[in-house]
C-alpha cells in the first residue's frame, strides 16, 4: 500500500475520532481564548503597544496550545495498545507519523482561522488587509510545530513525567520557527506591510528539513 494511501487512512481515522470527541480542538480553542484574555489583563497594552506585542503573543499562544494538544496524540494510542495494531499493519511506519502530523496540523489550523480575527478584535489591530499572507506564515510555522511536536510526542509517550518533558524538548527546537514567525508577522502588521523572503524560506526550510528527518527516522520512532 502506498505511503499516501496509508497516511490518508491514518489521517481519516484521527479526524473521525476527533470529530466524535472534540477533545483536542475544544482544549486548544479554550486555551487560546484564555491566553488572549489574560495577556490583555496582564499588560493592558495601548493600540501602539498591541501592534508590537501581538505577533509574539499569537505565536506563543499557538505554541503552548500545540504543546498541550500534542501530548495526547500518542498517549491516546496506548490506552488499548493500538500503536501495536498500527505497527503490525503492512504499512510504512512513517505513514503513522505523517497521518498524525497532518491531523494535528489541521486541528491547529482550524484554531488559527478562528482566533486570528478574535486577536484582531481584542487588540485593535486590523489584520484584514494582510489576512492571506498572515495565514500563510502561520501555516508554515504550524506545520513545523506539528512535525517536530508529533515526533517528540511519539518519543516521550513512554517516558516518565512526559507531560513536563514534551514542552522542554519541543520549545528549544522551535526557536527558529518562533523567531522567523514573529518577525514575519511583525513585518506584516507594521506600518509598511510586507513579507520577508528570508523568513518564509526559514519557515519552509525548517519544514522540509524536519519532514525529511522524520521520514528517515520514523522506523525507530514507533519501535517498542
Amino acid at each position: 500500500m502506498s505511503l499516501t494511501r496509508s497516511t490518508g487512512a491514518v489521517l481519516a481515522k484521527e479526524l473521525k475520532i476527533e470529530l466524535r470527541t472534540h477533545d483536542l480542538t475544544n482544549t486548544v480553542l479554550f486555551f487560546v481564548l484564555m491566553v488572549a484574555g489574560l495577556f490583555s489583563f496582564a499588560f493592558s497594552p495601548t493600540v501602539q503597544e498591541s501592534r508590537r506585542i501581538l505577533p509574539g503573543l499569537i505565536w506563543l499562544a499557538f505554541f503552548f496550545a500545540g504543546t498541550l494538544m500534542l501530548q495526547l496524540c500518542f498517549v491516546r494510542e496506548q490506552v488499548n495498545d493500538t500503536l501495536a495494531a498500527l505497527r503490525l499493519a503492512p504499512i510504512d511506519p512513517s505513514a503513522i507519523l505523517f497521518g498524525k502530523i497532518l491531523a494535528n496540523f489541521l486541528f491547529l489550523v482550524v484554531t488559527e482561522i478562528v482566533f486570528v480575527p478574535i486577536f484582531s478584535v481584542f487588540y485593535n489591530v486590523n489584520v484584514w488587509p494582510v489576512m492571506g499572507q498572515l495565514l500563510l506564515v502561520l501555516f508554515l510555522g504550524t506545520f513545523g510545530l506539528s512535525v517536530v511536536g508529533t515526533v517528540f510526542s511519539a518519543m516521550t509517550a513512554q517516558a516518565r513525567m512526559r507531560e513536563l518533558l514534551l514542552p522542554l524538548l519541543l520549545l528549544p527546537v522551535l526557536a527558529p520557527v518562533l523567531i522567523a514567525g514573529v518577525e514575519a508577522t511583525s513585518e506584516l502588521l507594521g506600518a509598511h506591510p510586507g513579507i520577508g523572503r528570508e523568513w518564509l524560506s526559514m519557515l519552509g526550510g525548517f519544514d522540509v528539513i524536519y519532514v525529511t528527518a522524520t521520514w528517515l527516522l520514523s522506523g525507530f520512532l514507533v519501535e517498542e
Partner: protein
Amino acid sequence: MGPAGDGQRQQIDGTVQEMEMTTKSKQRVWGLAWVATAILLALAGYAIFFVAPRELTMGNIQRIFYVHVATAWCGFIAFFISFFGCIGYLASRQMEWDWLAVATAEVGLMFTTVVLITGPVWAKPVWGVWWVWDARLTTAFILEMLYIAYLLLRKMVTEPGRRAMISAVFGIFAFLDVPLCYFSIRWWRTLHPAPVIGGGPGSGINPVMWHVFLFGLAGFLALTVILVRDRYRMEALRQKISELAADLEEREESLESKEVTR
C-alpha cells in the same frame, strides 16, 4: 549446576583478572594524560596573563577571549561528535555509540556553560550590557537549552536500549536545529564581532595572541578528550554492573531451582 557452573565461574574469574590487569595499565596512561593536561592548562593560563600583549581598545578584559573562544570551539566540537554518536547508534545499535553521544553531550554542555558565563563578563565592559541577543550568544544559549533537554530526556527513560534510541533521535533533531537557529538569529540581529580568525581580509590578530590562543585551545581540547573518555568509561562500567547484577540474579535463581529439585 555441577561442572558447568564451575567452568562458568572459572571463565568469569579469568575475565575479571584480565580486566583488572588491562584496567591498571590503562589507568596509568590516563592518569598521565590528566597530569599532562593540567600542566598544559596551567601554562596556557600563564601565557594568557603574562605572555599575550594587552589589547589596545579593550584592555585586559580582552584576555577572556582565549578562554571564551577556545571553550566555544571545544563545546561545538563535542556536540558535533555527539551528533555522530547518535547517527552511529541508530545505524549500528551498538551501545558504545550511545555512550559516546552522552559523554560528548555532557562535556559539550559544560563548555557551553563556560561560554555563556564568560560571554557576559566580557560583554559588560565592552558593549556596556551583560547580555545581548545576538546571533552567536543566542545560538549558544539555545544549544545549552537543547542539550539540557537531551540529558533530561535520558533521565526520564529508564530502559537503556530504548533510552539510547530515543535520545539518538532527539540528538539528531537537536543538532539539525543549530544551523537554523544560527541563521535565523543572524538575520534577526547581530552585534557580535565578525570572526577575528579567518573572517576575511582585515581580520586577524597579532601573532603572539594567535599562538597563545592556539596553546589555550590545545589545553582545552586535551581536557575535552580526557573528560569524554572518563565519562564514556563511566557508562561502560554502568553497563558492566547491570550485567553482573543480572548474572548474579541468574545464579541465585538456578541455585533456588536446584534446591527445589532436591
